[in-house]
């Protein structure tokens, strides 16, 4: 098995999909000759030609709108949005058209497209290149929202997303593109959507997280272990649909929960996890669910390192719920 970075695993996943299914194609700004802004599609146009890896004009709504048209007519487009911050022009196409097509057509049509886009901070990208907007999409029935955190999951989840008959927002933690490495199987495999992954077993406190926050949670768990607090880390992987049973099982197991994400707190994804536990597992709880998140401000450029949760903030929350 080859060892790859997360972005290499994504490239490998797309290459595998192009080989596996002739209806798969890639489209986006600079995805062809340049290989994408982060080089995720590097070499794919050379290998598969301009008809399957298509450079498009700089128009996100046109890009996603075209992809919806292709998808409803039998193709399986993978759209790359260079930064998640630029997805908003296409927001209407995604939430009003792609997400609703199956329902609106009485189950006659669907839009099996994947929108890949890097999200989050950590690369000094500043205000317009660092946002974590997963909650907007999670609020939209008809979409699936996936965020990998390891190379293995990145390829397996991407292939599952491409195979899925409905639109999938595939958010890539750009801070981890080249920061994590791992073994990735050759050829085609998928990782089930809507199943969470236990990163680390523990009995005292459960930390729910995803994407770029998974390594932060792991560092915090190490610090907590030094104090005798045994932390379990759950990588949610698919935010919509969520593995609700898995979440509740993990919450009931320890009775103490921290939810960790980089996006702002208010109406953020952590609130959903917290509410789910409050509705279905409250009697097992030993402490309130604590959220560790970004702040309710626009993403700050120079204060990026304060904005993004670090292991110490997570540790504080772990200690809080543990000693509650």
């Amino acid at each position, binding site marked *: 098995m080859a060892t790859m970075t997360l972005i290499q695993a994504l490239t490998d996943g797309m290459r595998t999909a192009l080989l596996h299914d002739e209806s798969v194609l890639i489209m986006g700004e600079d995805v062809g000759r340049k290989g994408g802004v982060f080089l995720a599609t590097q070499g794919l146009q050379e290998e598969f030609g301009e008809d399957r890896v298509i450079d498009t004009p700089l128009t996100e709504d046109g890009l996603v709108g075209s992809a919806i048209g292709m998808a409803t007519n039998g193709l399986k487009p993978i759209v790359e949005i260079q930064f998640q911050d630029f997805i908003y022009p296409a927001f209407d196409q995604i939430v009003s058209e792609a997400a609703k097509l199956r329902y609106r057509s009485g189950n006659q049509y669907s839009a099996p497209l994947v929108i890949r886009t890097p999200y989050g901070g950590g690369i000094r990208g500043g205000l317009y290149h660092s946002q974590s907007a997963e909650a907007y999409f999670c609020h939209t029935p008809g979409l699936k929202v996936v965020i990998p955190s390891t190379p293995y999951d990145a390829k397996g989840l991407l292939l599952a997303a491409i195979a899925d008959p409905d639109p999938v927002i595939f958010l890539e933690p750009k801070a981890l593109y080249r920061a994590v490495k791992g073994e990735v199987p050759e050829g085609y495999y998928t990782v089930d959507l809507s199943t969470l992954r236990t990163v680390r077993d523990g009995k005292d406190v459960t930390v729910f997280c995803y994407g770029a926050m998974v390594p932060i949670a792991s560092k915090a768990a190490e610090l907590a272990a030094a104090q005798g607090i045994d932390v379990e880390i759950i990588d949610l992987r698919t935010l919509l649909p969520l593995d609700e049973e898995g979440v509740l099982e993990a919450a009931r197991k320890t*009775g103490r929960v921290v939810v960790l994400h980089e996006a702002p707190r208010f109406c953020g994804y952590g609130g959903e996890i917290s509410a789910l536990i409050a509705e279905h597992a*409250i*009697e*097992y*709880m*030993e*402490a309130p669910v604590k959220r560790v998140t970004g702040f309710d401000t626009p993403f700050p450029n120079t204060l990026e390192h304060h904005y993004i949760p670090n292991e110490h903030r997570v540790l504080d929350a772990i200690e809080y719920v543990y*000693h*509650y």
Partner: protein
Amino acid sequence: MALEFRLPDIGEGLTEGEIIKWCVKIGDKVAEHQTVLEVMTDKAAVELPSPKAGIIKEILAKEGDVVPVGTVIFILDDGQTAVTSAGHSGHGHAKPAAKTETKTETKTETKTETKTATAVSAHDDKVRAVPSARRSARDLNVTLADVEGSGRNGVIRRSDVEAVAKSGRNVSSNNNASQISIPAGTRETRTPFVGLRRKIAEQMTRSKFTATHFTVVEEIDVTELVRLRQRAKAIGEKEGTKLTFTAFIMKACASALIKYPELNSMLDEKNNEIVTYHYSNLGIATDTPNGLVVPVIRDAQAKSVLTLSKELDAMADKARNGQLKAEDFQGGTFTISNAGQIGSIHATPIINFPQVAILGVHRLMKKPGVVETPEGDKIEVRQYMNFSISVDHRLADGVSAVRLLVHIKQLLEDPGLLAL
């Protein structure tokens, strides 16, 4: 123009107090430091003085009400202050007793103000417990209101509930049928079960349900002690104290407790530790017109019989005059209960929890006894007292109790040894 007086934490981490007596009524003028009410704490009745001079505007708790620390219990019009608070604000879970709130019979124009005050704090009228503790309390039939929380700001955790369930305390019965109601007749009197009596009842029940009592009894020939006391009385009189047997018994007991400290200890349940004391602070169960109280004589092991006797006199005076303070009851490591002056030859005393043991002292009696002489055994009129010791078997075993009693026996049968 009103000062809210909140029930303060009078003693060591007091969480609630029972209002025994109001010394004032609405409309009364009070001076600064004038006693306004008496409150029963875990250990003693305490008088609470007014923090300022003024007029009693509202009285918000009835006699007999048990009120959490931090609850507003009366409102004083001091003629200057806007609404402020006096007293301790408690630990965040202060609540006005529900009864108090509804039964306030105030007919002055300040009624609205009071209502607002109680309404604001009404949401605090809840037990603070984590959800899992609530589930646990339901499953284990424990009344949450009676559980002391060890979590942040006194929040009840699941482990607190489980500990209570395990100890058998505060486990509520499934229905109210177990609460016995006795029909009133014409030839009985009915006295409110309040104050010291209720406090004693709570303490004794807690002790009996928690400590695993067993009792050992020993008969002690105190003929020599009677003679010694007779001679020593004159010295005592010169020193201004009436030497009683209790002082001698305390001296012997303190000596024994230093030698066998496993009976001079307590169980710190929170920290799972046995605390052993290397000094003996003797609680002396004392009968007062209101009921039994247990003031403490400190460091008995370091004091002479005469000193102990003097301190006993002083304590008894205070008890009779109702002047004992909360600190007089604190810090006891062992208790002596002497009802011998009245009668009894045997008892199974209930431990003054969380202490480990209690010594019961019984009446002095003349009996024929066998005395060994060079001419052989002879029967003589001797004087005897029985001693019973109840011990918490969780922390100490029978041999400890017997050893302690034997040590006391040696000292009291040959009281000259007390001087050693």
